[in-house]
């Protein structure tokens, strides 16, 4: 029983971070109708920002959220405005130009970071790295619990932002029907720029929260892009609530699979669920929740 509870806790905590990674991607997906394949790489850049702030200026990783998120928001805005939006105009054979562009951006980001920092593994060790508290015999890692709390806070804030504010409504309108949104006077071009920035800032947040418990190196982006993609599909493209469910499901499934099937199968479990959802529940959890 202890084993089961411990795994549930571990999976849930990891799922919170996954949700945050997924929400960023699903937002971009909803508004622009493309999968952002540089998502994990952008997260990696945020992790390096946090690493630099910590090792050169001694800034606590949680405080560096206030730098990493705005910085990545700006990077996202620049990418959308100057690299992705111009592609809409260009007539080409391939309709998914912007997706290909994101692949390229991902590679450039990885190599630029490699050029600056080399391939070394970097890690940030803080006083709370490895700090734990126990409830009964179940161990909770402080860093992950805090990360989970912040992830939930951002998710809830995001939710209210989308439902209650003017800008949030414009984003949802653009996601639902771009042409109608334009007719209603929404500047959709500006909306896409802001959305990409927001999505990037959210994944930057996830990256920063991950730094104290994980490590950083340039090739880290790829696997996380894949994870974000799985979460987005699980949750249903473009659905915020779906991404939360998707993230937690993936976290739990990986942990349970790793425990009861073997750690070697951790990734296989996630991918199997991915395929099953595509087969039997195309559209993801969004179909069940309708949000």
């Amino acid at each position: 029983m202890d084993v089961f509870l411990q795994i549930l806790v571990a999976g849930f905590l990891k799922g919170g971070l996954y949700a945050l990674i997924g929400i960023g991607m699903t937002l971009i997906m909803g508004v622009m109708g493309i999968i952002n394949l540089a998502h994990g790489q952008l997260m990696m850049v945020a992790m390096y920002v946090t690493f630099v702030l910590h090792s050169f200026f001694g800034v606590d990783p949680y405080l560096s959220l206030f730098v990493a998120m705005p910085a990545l928001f700006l990077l996202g805005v620049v990418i959308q405005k100057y690299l992705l939006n111009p592609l809409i105009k260009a007539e080409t054979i391939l309709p998914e130009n912007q997706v290909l562009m994101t692949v390229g951006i991902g590679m450039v980001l990885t190599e630029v970071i490699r050029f600056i920092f080399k391939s070394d593994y970097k890690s940030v060790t803080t006083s709370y790295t490895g700090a734990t508290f126990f409830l009964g015999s179940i161990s909770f890692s402080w860093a992950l619990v805090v990360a989970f709390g912040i992830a939930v806070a951002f998710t809830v804030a995001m939710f209210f932002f989308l439902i209650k504010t003017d800008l949030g409504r414009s984003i949802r309108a653009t996601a639902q029907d771009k042409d109608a949104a334009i007719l209603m006077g929404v500047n959709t071009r500006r909306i896409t720029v802001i959305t990409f920035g927001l999505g990037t800032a959210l994944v930057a947040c996830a990256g920063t929260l991950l730094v104290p418990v994980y490590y950083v190196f340039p090739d880290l982006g790829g696997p996380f892009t894949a994870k974000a993609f799985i979460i987005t599909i699980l949750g249903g493209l473009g659905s915020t609530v779906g991404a939360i469910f998707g993230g937690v499901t993936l976290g739990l499934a990986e942990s349970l699979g790793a425990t009861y099937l073997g750690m070697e199968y951790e990734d296989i479990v996630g991918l199997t669920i991915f395929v099953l959802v595509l087969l039997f529940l195309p559209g993801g959890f969004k179909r069940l929740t309708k949000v």
Partner: protein
Amino acid sequence: MRIVRKGLIGIFVLVMASFLCGAASAAEPIKVGVVLPLTGSMAKFGEIERRSFEMALEEINAKGGVKGRKIELVFEDDTGKPDVGRSAVEKLISRDKVPVVTGGYSSAVVAAAAPVAHQLKVPFVICTGAADDVTEKGYEYVFRINPTASEYPEATKSFLKGVAKVKTAVILYENTQFGQSSSKAFEEDCKELGIQVLMKEGYSAGAIDFKPLLTNVKAKNPDLIYMVSYVLDASLLIRQAKELDINPKLFVGGAAGFTLPEFQMSAGPAAEYVFSATLWTPNLRDKDYPGAKKYFDNFRARYKSDTEYHGAEAYASMYVVADALKRTKSFTPKDVRDALAATNMKTAFGPVKFISYGKKTQQNKLPTYLVQWQDGKLETVWPKDVATKKALYPTPKWSARK
């Protein structure tokens, strides 16, 4: 960054110099190919080895090189991937026309590159890649200086026999050729020592959360946890074992990640008391390991960072290759191969002699050692005659530590 730039400028100057004067003089340098992971996830090890190769090269060239000619190293990056390593060796042999290739860090890369050397009949002196089967295929042109993965736990075994008499063990390993080879060997050692293996499980490198694995380990409550991991998986494993409050009598690492300074930096105080197998330490007797201490001190003085067994392997490898080039009749790959086969010398990494035993051919045989992290330093604790500190055993519970 600065070092890279300096290195690049250095290489550039060297290349220019060799163009300008090399062409004119008869004594062109002899090219030796080196394949190492200079980028990618294993780049840290590649860097230590490259620096060690360069140190040895300078020493050899300062003493006049071989047969009045200088040696020049041609580095190729294998990025830690087998396919890239394979083509890197092909390129060294066919384009750069080197008479001998050395280096070879990861087991997977070495396993892919060795058949190339064998087919193209150019000797390949492996300095690190340890998966057993590489020297079990009878490749005539493949030599290996380091012991095979299955021999890494030798010192651990005798330590378990002599000091830490445990009853149960759990084996965790990275699911790669090296991990499988090492863990299988240790499992057999356990059987021999009468230690019951409660669990043996692989994992794929780069996981964020090892808790599922470690929770199972905790439920089994073993006396010994043996781990075969690269550097950051190693530190995550130890950190999370601490988080879950797992208290075996000893944690033992199967070399690779556990001896690097980065492991201690990233794991912090959790690294204390962790044992690891190793192939080399700087305080070995000069009789069999001439220059070991000197190499260690020079490296530290020059690069302001520590070196460990991987570097020593590379350093010794350069000397072995130079020695063969001195003895060879001509610089054709065939003659160099024959010279290598007759190698019998002592290096900073230990005596080197390529012998056949069991299924293996042209394999060097060396003893291994056991080290332990004590007060942030890597101390040799076994065998007793080379120990710098007494082994701290059993490991105190996490809650009893400061």
